[in-house]
C-alpha cells in the first residue's frame, strides 16, 4: 500500500488491531465503563462496612459526623460539581475542535481538583489537631463530653472505627483524585499539542468519564459521612 493510501485508511491514532476508528472508540469507552464498574465494587465494600457500623454504633457515628467540618465538605462538593461541569464543557470543546478552550477548561478542572485536595488537607489537619486520627494518639474524650451532655455514653473505640472509615473512605477518594490529576495533566499536554480533533478525542471523553466517577463517589460520601444523623439527640 502506498503511504497516502495508508494515511487515508489509517489515521495515525488508529491502533493496528482495530478495524476502524469507530471500533476503537467504542472499545475504549466500553473499557472505561467496565473499569468504573470495578471501582464501584471497590468502594462498595467499604461503603458496606460503613453502613453496617453506622447502624450498630449510631451514637458514636452521629457525633463523628457532627465533628467533621460540614462547611468545608459543602464547599468541596461544590468544587467537584463545578469541576465536572468544566470537564463536560471540555469534551464539548473538543467536539467542536476548539483547542484553546479545551486546554483552558482542562486546566480549570485541575485547579478545582487541587483546590479539593487542599481543602481536604485542611479538614484532615483539623482532625489531626483534635486527636481524631486513628492510631496511638487517638483521643475522642471531647466527643465523650458532648455525649454526656445529652446523657449518652460514647465508646471511644467505636468512635475510632468511625474515624478509621472516614479516613479510609476520604483517603481512597483523594487518591483517586490524585490519579485523576495525573491523567488530566497528560490530557492537557496532548490537548495543547493539538492532538485532539472533532474526529478523535476519545481520551478526553474517557478521562472525563473517570473524573465524573470520582465526583459521583464524593456525592455518595458527602451525605453518608457529613450530612446524615447530625442531630440525633433531642
Amino acid at each position, binding site marked *: 500500500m502506498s503511504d497516502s493510501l495508508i494515511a487515508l485508511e489509517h489515521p495515525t491514532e488508529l491502533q*493496528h488491531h482495530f478495524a476502524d476508528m469507530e471500533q476503537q472508540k467504542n472499545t475504549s469507552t*466500553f473499557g472505561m465503563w467496565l473499569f468504573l464498574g470495578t471501582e464501584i*465494587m471497590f468502594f462498595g465494600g467499604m461503603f458496606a462496612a460503613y453502613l453496617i457500623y453506622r447502624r450498630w454504633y449510631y451514637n458514636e457515628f452521629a457525633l463523628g459526623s457532627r465533628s467533621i467540618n460540614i462547611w468545608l465538605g459543602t464547599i468541596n462538593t461544590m468544587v467537584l460539581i463545578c469541576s465536572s461541569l468544566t470537564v463536560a464543557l471540555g469534551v464539548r470543546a473538543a467536539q467542536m475542535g476548539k483547542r484553546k478552550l479545551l486546554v483552558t477548561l482542562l486546566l480549570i478542572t485541575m485547579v478545582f481538583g487541587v483546590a479539593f485536595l487542599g481543602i481536604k488537607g485542611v479538614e484532615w489537619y483539623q482532625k489531626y489537631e483534635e486527636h481524631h486520627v486513628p492510631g496511638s494518639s487517638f483521643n475522642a474524650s471531647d466527643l465523650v463530653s458532648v455525649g454526656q451532655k445529652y446523657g449518652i455514653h460514647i465508646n471511644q473505640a467505636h468512635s475510632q*472505627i468511625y474515624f478509621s472509615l472516614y479516613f479510609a473512605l476520604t483517603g481512597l477518594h483523594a487518591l483517586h483524585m490524585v490519579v485523576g490529576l495525573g491523567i488530566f495533566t497528560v490530557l492537557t499536554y496532548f490537548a495543547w499539542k493539538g492532538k485532539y480533533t472533532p474526529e478523535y478525542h476519545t481520551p478526553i471523553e474517557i478521562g472525563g468519564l473517570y473524573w465524573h466517577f470520582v465526583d459521583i463517589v464524593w456525592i455518595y460520601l458527602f451525605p453518608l459521612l457529613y450530612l446524615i444523623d447530625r442531630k440525633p439527640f433531642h
Partner: protein
Amino acid sequence: MATAVVTTERENYINSEYGIRSWLLTTDHKRIALLYLLSITFFFFIGGFFALLIRLELLTPAGDLVQADTYNKLFTMHGQIMVFFFLIPSIPAVLGNFLVPMMIGAKDLAFPRINLLSWYLYIFGGCMMLHCIVTGGVDTGWTFYTPFSTAFTNTKVIEAGLSIFIVGFSSILTGLNFVVSIHRMRAPGLTWSRLPLFLWSIYATSIIFLLGTPVLAITLLLLIFERAFHLGIFDPTRGGDPLLFQHLFWFYSHPAVYIMILPAMGVVSEIIPCFSRKRVFGYSFVAMSSIAIAVFGFLVWAHHMFVAGISLYSALFFSILSYLVAVPSAVKVFNWTATMYKGSISFSTPMLYALGFIGLFTIGGLTGLFLAALGFDVHVTDTYFVIAHFHYIMVGGAVMGYLGGLHFWWPKISGRMYPEAWGRLAAAIVFIGFNLTFFPQFILGYMGMPRRYWQYPPEFQVLNVFSTAGSTILAVGYLLPMIYMLWSLRYGKIAGDNPWGAAGLEWKTASPPPTFNFDETPEVTWEAYNYDEIPMPEEVSLER
C-alpha cells in the same frame, strides 16, 4: 520423525523479533501468554514444594520435620501461592491470553498495553510475595482471619496482603480486556451463538474478575490499615467485628473458586467435541450454565461460615443457594457425556485429561453437596474433608483442565507436537497420584482430623501415609510434562496448522501463528463445532 532446525520458517510471533527487550516490552497477546506461562509455572513449583514439605511432615503424627510455626507458614503460603499466583491466572492468563483474540478472529486483545501491564503487575506482586517468603513468611492461613492476623501474629501479614492486592489488579485488567474484546472485536459473522464454549467460560470468568476482585482488594486494604494503625474495624476488643472480615473476604473468595474452575470447564468443552468429532450436545445450555455459575456464585459465600456464628436463617439461605449453584455444573457434566454419544472417539493426551477432569470434578462436586448440607457441614468443616473436596475441584478439576488445554493447544503455541506416549503416561500418573493423595483425606476428615494441624493423634497416621505416598507420585506426574514439552520445542514433530482437525478460528492459521494472527480477517459463516464439515486429520494415529 524429528526435525532439528527448520530453516524456511514463515514469520510467526516467535521469530518475528529477537532479544529480551522484544519479549519484555511486547504487546503481542501471544508473547504475553508465554511470559505468563513461565511465571505461573515457576510459582506452581514453589507452591508444590511447600505442599511436599507439608505432606512429608504429615507422614508421622508428631511434629518432627519442621517447627510448628514453620508448618503454619508452609500451609499458608502454599495456599496463597497456589490460589493467587497459580490457579487464578493459569488458564485465563496463559490460554486465555493466547487464544481469545484468535478465537474471535481478531489481531489482538482490545488493550494490548494494558495486557502487558497486567503481567508486570503480576510480576510485581509475585516478587513481593517471594520477598515476604524469604524474609519470614506469613502464618495466618490463606484466609487471613481476624483478630489473629491483625493483632496476634508476628508474621508479615502486610507484605503478603499487599502482594495479593497488587496481583488482584492484574486479574481485573485481564478480565476487562477479555470482556471488551469479546463484545467488540469479534470477526464478522461470529455471533454469540457461534462462539466457542471456551470463550463463554472465559467471559463468565471475566465477569467474576471484574465484580469480585475489587472487593478482595478493599478487604485486604482494610486489613492492612487495621494492622498497621491498630484500628478496630475487625477487632472485638476495639469494638470491631471479626465476622465482618469473614463476610467481606468470602464475598470474593467464593466466586474466586469459580474463577478457577470455569475456564477449565471451557477447555473440556473444546477437547471433548474435537476428540469425539461431534458438536457439543446442548450448546446453549452449556453456554448459559457458565453464566449461571458466575451469577449464582456470588450468592453463596457464607457457606464457608456455617459454624462461624451466623444466624440460623442466614445459614438456611446460603445452604439452599449452594444447592442451586450445583445444578449448572451437573448440567455440564451430563452434556459432555452426551457429546460422546455416537461420536468417533480417540484417546489423545488432551482427551485423557478431559475425561479425568469429568471423573474427578464429579467426585469433587458431589462432595460439595455433602458440605452444603448444614448439619453435615458442622461435623466436617475445618477438617480434611473440606481439603479433599477443594483439591478434587482445583487440582483434579482445574489443573487437569489446564494441563489438558496446554497439551491440546501446544501445537498451535509452539508449532511442535509433544511426544504422545509420554503425554498419556503422565496423564495416567497424575490421575493415579492425585486419587491416592486426596481420596484418603475424605475419610480422614469424617474421622475428625482437623485441618492446619502440624501434629495429629496416631490413629490418623495410616491414611496420612497413603496421602503422602500419592503426593510423590503426583509430583512425578507434574514433572514429566515440564521435561517433555521443553524437549519437544527442539525435537518434537512439526505440527501443521491443525493436527487435531479441530474446529475454531485459531486452527485456521499457521502453527505457530503469525504476529497478527490471520493474514486476512476471517468471516464466519458456520456454527461452532462444525465437525461434520471438518475433515479428520490424515494422521489420526497419535503415535510418535
